[in-house]
C-alpha cells in the first residue's frame, strides 16, 4: 500500500508523457514529403512577396516619395527573405530526395551532400543578414550576392536531379543483374540434370545480357555529358536535358531486359 500510490502516479505520468513525446519531431520524421511541402509553401509565399515588390517598385519609380520608398524597401526585403527561404527549402528537399532514392551511388551522394550542406547555411546566413533598415541600394547589392550564388549552384541542382534519376535506373539494373545471376545458376543446374534442353534458354540469356550492357553504356554517356566542368546556368540545363534523354534510353533497355527475363522463366517452367 505504501508503494502503490507512487507506482500508480508514475504509471499515469508515463501515459500522459508518452503522447507528448511522440509528437516531438525527430530527424527521422522529417522526410522528403514533408520537406517538399515546406518547399511548396515557401515558394508560394515568395510568389506573393514578389508581386508586392513589383507593385511597390513601380509606385516608387512613379512618385519618388519617402512613403513609396519605405514601402518599396519593405516589400523588397520581404521578397529577398522569401527567396532565400525558397532556395533553402528547395535544397533541403533535393537532399532528402537523394537520400531516399534507392540506387543512388554512395560516393556520388556524399559529394552532393557536402555541396548542398554548404549552400543551405549560406542562404540562411544571407537571409538573416538582410538589414531591416537601410537603403534600396543595399538591398540591390544583397540581391546580387544571392544571384551569383544561385547561378553558381545551378549545376549542383541539375547534378543532383540527374543522380536521382540515375539512381532509379541503377536500382532496376542491379535487380535485373541479381535475377540474371540466379537464372544462370538455375540453367546450369538444369543442364547438369539433363532433363531439359537449355540451348534456347542460354541464347535468351545472352540477349538479355546484351540489353543490360546497352543500358549501362547509356548510363555512362549520361554522366559524361553532365560531368563537364565549369558549366554555366544555361549550359547546365541543356546538359541535364541531354543526359536525362540518355538515361531514359537506358531505362527503356532495362524494360526490355525485364520482359526477356520473364520469358526465360516462363520457358523454364515447361518441358521440351
Amino acid at each position, binding site marked *: 500500500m505504501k508503494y502503490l500510490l507512487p507506482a500508480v502516479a508514475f504509471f499515469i505520468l508515463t501515459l500522459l508523457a508518452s503522447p507528448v513525446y511522440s509528437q516531438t519531431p525527430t530527424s527521422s520524421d522529417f522526410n522528403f514529403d514533408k520537406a*517538399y511541402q515546406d518547399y511548396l509553401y515557401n*515558394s508560394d509565399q*515568395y510568389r506573393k512577396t514578389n508581386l508586392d*515588390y513589383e507593385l511597390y*517598385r513601380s509606385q*516608387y*519609380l512613379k512618385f519618388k516619395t519617402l512613403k513609396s520608398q519605405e514601402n*518599396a524597401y519593405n516589400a*523588397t526585403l520581404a*521578397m*529577398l527573405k522569401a*527567396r532565400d527561404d*525558397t*532556395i533553402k527549402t*528547395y535544397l533541403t*528537399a*533535393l537532399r532528402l*530526395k537523394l537520400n531516399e532514392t534507392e540506387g543512388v551511388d554512395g560516393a556520388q551522394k556524399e559529394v552532393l551532400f557536402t555541396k548542398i550542406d554548404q549552400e543551405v547555411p549560406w542562404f540562411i546566413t544571407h537571409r538573416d543578414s538582410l538589414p531591416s533598415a537601410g537603403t*534600396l*541600394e543595399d*538591398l*540591390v547589392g544583397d*540581391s*546580387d550576392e*544571392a*544571384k551569383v550564388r*544561385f547561378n553558381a549552384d*545551378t549545376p549542383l541542382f*541539375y547534378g543532383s*536531379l540527374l543522380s*536521382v*534519376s540515375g539512381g*532509379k*535506373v541503377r536500382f*532496376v539494373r542491379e*535487380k*535485373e543483374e*541479381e*535475377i540474371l545471376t*540466379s*537464372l544462370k545458376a*538455375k540453367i546450369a543446374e*538444369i543442364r547438369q540434370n539433363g*532433363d*531439359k534442353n537449355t540451348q534456347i534458354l542460354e541464347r535468351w540469356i545472352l540477349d538479355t545480357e546484351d540489353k543490360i550492357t546497352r543500358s549501362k553504356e547509356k548510363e555512362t554517356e549520361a554522366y559524361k555529358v553532365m560531368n563537364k566542368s565549369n558549366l554555366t546556368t544555361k549550359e547546365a540545363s541543356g546538359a541535364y536535358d541531354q543526359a*536525362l534523354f540518355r*538515361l*531514359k534510353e537506358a*531505362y527503356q533497355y*532495362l*524494360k526490355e531486359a*525485364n*520482359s526477356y*527475363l*520473364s520469358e526465360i*522463366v516462363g520457358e*523454364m*517452367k*515447361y*518441358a521440351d
Partner: protein
Amino acid sequence: MPTNFTSNVQTPNVSQASIQPSASLAPTPNPTSKLREILAKILSGLSNIRGKFSTQAEPIDGGIVAAPGISSKTKRIITIVAALFLTVITLLIVVTYLKSREKKPKVEEAQQPSAQTTIVERKLSRYATDEAVLKMETDIKALDTSINKEDIEEKALTPPTLNFDVNFKE
C-alpha cells in the same frame, strides 16, 4: 369453194328472241323461275358479246355460210405455227438457262481463317514448382510493376524560377 369473207364480212344479225327463253315460262310461280330468269339474262348478255366479236360471211345468193370468219384449216395452221413458236421459245429459254448454269463460275467459298488458335498444350517441367524459379518469377513481376509505375524524371524538383532582377532604375 371458200367464200371470200374478207370483203363480205358483216356484223351478225342475231335476234334477241332466238336466244331468250320463251314468254310462256316466265309467269310460273315456281321458285326456280327467278333463277331461270337470271340465267336467261346472262345468256342474252353473253350472246350480245359474242355477236360483237364474231364475223359472219355474207351469204352468197341467199345461201347460208356456216363457217365462221376464219376457216378451220387456217385455224389449224395458226394453231400449229403458234404451238411451234411456243415450243421454240420454250426450248430457247431452257437452252439459255442450261448454258448459263454451265458457264457460271463456281463461287469459291473463301476459306475463313479459323478464329480458334491452336492451343498446344505443353507439359509442365519439374521446374514449374521449383521454389527458386517461383521466387524469380515473383521478383520479375514486382520489378515490372515498379518500372512501369516509376517516372525517372523528377519533374516536381526542377530548379525554382526566381526573380533576381532587383533594381530601382527606370
